[in-house]
């Protein structure tokens, strides 16, 4: 670790990128942090220097050269078009932006490290999936469109860059769905709906990563200088029905085809964006193996899947939970009993693997 590093962070206009850039700037081993995005960030950037630049054009190469950037953190592979515009813009930003950024990095002599925040959506979701994906596995049904295709293409470019510049440490972090009180994503807006639609007859397995753990793992990757592809997720899994029960929200099971139609209706109503990838995820679920994260990257998340979700739920308005209260009242009249739940599964699925 050489003191006085200069880190370039892309995608700082969004909350996750902005807060990460800020925490990185406060680190003593990091000299300067430069934030790059097309639109200015809404919140406070702290010590981060903001450069308004579009990573889709070669200006980014000049920024990297002028500022003597040695570490690039690429966080602007986005799942929602949001304020950036329509799906076309999103694809441009994701794929062309990554291409330009990687081209600039390849040109630059100073760049020593590249950290890319990818997503487990690269594995897709289908009925033929193995229970837990390891880093070497390919998606069973390659995505033909949408965000998951963007992610796969971005990863392909990143691998190509790693081949061409073996001297640069390339860390590809495939993060599970990030959840937390401040996260705005298709999945969190889905969970914030008053009545939550589900796919009838399917109970997907979910895995979450707390937003603070996302910051920690990115920082860890920047400081530790370990190359490779890593799955990043909280320990354990939970199924959707369990998550909904923990929230105490009512749900509305819909047959698969109606669920897809509802997705587009909700999107036009701007309530939630149930994209085809999210629909597949909410039908079949996905689990990723985090052995390599623990053993090679040396990172340990603070929050398990269940804890991360619990913290997200605690920021939502509390549900009535009438049935639970009634049962609690009856239980108080009865003598206490020792727990008779199965002992084997105590810490949410265990952490073997």
């Amino acid at each position, binding site marked *: 670790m050489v003191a006085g590093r200069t880190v370039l962070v892309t995608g700082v206009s969004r909350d996750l990128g902005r807060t990460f850039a800020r925490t990185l700037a406060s680190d003593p081993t990091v000299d300067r942090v430069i934030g790059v995005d097309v639109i200015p960030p809404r919140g406070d950037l702290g010590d981060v220097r903001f450069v308004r630049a579009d990573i889709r054009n070669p200006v980014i190469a000049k920024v990297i050269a002028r500022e003597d950037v040695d570490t690039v953190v690429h966080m602007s592979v986005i799942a929602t078009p949001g304020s950036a515009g329509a799906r076309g813009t999103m694809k441009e930003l994701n794929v062309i932006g990554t291409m330009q950024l990687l081209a600039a990095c390849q040109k630059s002599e100073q760049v020593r490290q590249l950290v890319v925040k990818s997503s487990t959506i690269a594995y897709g979701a289908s009925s033929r999936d193995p*229970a837990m994906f390891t880093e070497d596995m390919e998606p069973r049904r390659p995505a033909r469109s949408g965000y998951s295709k963007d992610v796969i293409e971005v990863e392909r470019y990143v691998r190509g860059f790693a081949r061409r510049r073996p001297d640069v440490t390339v860390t590809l972090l495939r993060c599970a769905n990030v959840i937390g009180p401040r996260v705005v994503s298709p999945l969190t807006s889905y969970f914030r709906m008053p009545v939550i639609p589900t796919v009838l007859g399917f109970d997907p397995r979910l895995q979450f990563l707390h937003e603070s753990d996302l910051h920690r793992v990115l920082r860890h990757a920047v400081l530790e200088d370990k190359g490779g592809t890593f799955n990043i997720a909280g320990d354990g899994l939970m199924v959707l029905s369990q998550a909904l029960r923990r929230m105490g929200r009512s749900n509305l099971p819909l047959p698969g085809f109606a669920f897809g139609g509802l997705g587009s209706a909700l999107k036009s109503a701007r309530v939630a964006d149930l994209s085809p990838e999210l629909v597949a995820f909410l039908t079949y679920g996905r689990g990723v193996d985090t052995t390599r994260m623990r053993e090679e990257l040396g990172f340990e998340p603070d929050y398990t899947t269940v804890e991360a979700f619990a913290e997200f739920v605690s920021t939502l308005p509390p549900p009535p939970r009438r049935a639970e209260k009634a049962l609690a009242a009856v239980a108080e009249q009865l003598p206490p009993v020792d727990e008779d739940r199965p002992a084997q599964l105590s810490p949410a*699925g265990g952490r073997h693997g």
Partner: protein
Amino acid sequence: MGDAEIIPIGTRGPQGRGTGTRPSSAARGLAPKGGAQRGADAKQPPAKRTPAKKAPAKKSAAPAEARDEARDEARPVVDEHPHDRPSVVPPPTSEQTSEQASRAAAARTEDRSPLAGIPVGDWLAAFQHASKELFGDQWEPQLARMIAFTRRRITGDYSVDEYGFDQEVTERFFMAALRPIAQKWFRIEVRGVENIPAEGGALVVSNHSGTVPLDGLMTMVSIHDQTGRHLRPLGADLVFRLPMVGTLARKSGATLACSEDAERMLRGGELVGVWPEGFKGIGKPFSDRYKLQRFGRGGFVSAALRTGVPIVPLSVVGAEEIYPLVGNVPSLARLLGVPYIPITPLFPWLGPLGLVPLPSKWLLEFGEPIRTDEYEPGAADDPMLVFNVTDQVRETIQQTLYSLLMQRQSVFR
């Protein structure tokens, strides 16, 4: 019920042998204890209840007066629970009084407002009684346990493993539902259960039959009841594509039959079940019963070789006869995307009744484990070796099937 308050029969009307103040000894002898009230209450006109209500005031003062009044009213009874009865049923002190009280209460429902509802005390008594009936004398802890379970379920305070296995609900519901079918309907007899390792990974390989994969479910419940271990079945991807079925399969411990999941489970020390014949096995015609089909591509052997776990061959006799498959509708099956549409002697002719499996007698025999940890590390990549081990497992199961069929007296016994 004091004697003084009862005006027994024979004290009314023209003076007989009785004195009017005291019934004759014969009358006293005839009067059953409390029996007088029964007749009187039944006869009592609904509107005339005032004397009864006045009674307690006079009861202590002058029993004679009360009796006079009773005579005027032409009813020989004085109510001993006058005021409180319409509202609260008194706590039963003895069998007799409670019987009377309930009778009296039943006779007087007409003056109660229907809006008054059932008093809390009644609810509690009924609830306690029902709980005792349901859970026996230990009803309180039993009920508390049940409530604790229900609360856990509705608040989501339970855990699933990485394959989506929900142990609690499997043990409490799925196993409990399948157990009577296994024990009472198919009368499953399990042999060689000592061949299943008590701990650590092992691969149970079984023949597959019966049109509907009931043999898998029955094997799961039998192994759980005999050894306490959960069999983790590997299912075809069709299972996980179907709504409900896929979810239930994951909750009960199944996962997709692919080498990644199989090896992962075996490394995790699970007891994994596999049916290598797949749909060729369960969908074969009845005439081919007990003839093993091709054992897939031997993927299960590679998984066992890579993880070094023993292979336990399992032969199931009886499952072939539950739904004798005599016909198939291939075109419809193709249209629906399923491997076959079964036609059995009873299905679809009898409709839902045709779905009831025939009560054949089942025999499950676990064979001697085949060790795989003695081969050299690269053995799983040697196709010849994999084929040989596959054939060995297949032959073992086939031979055991023949010997079990010889021992069987008939299909149903």
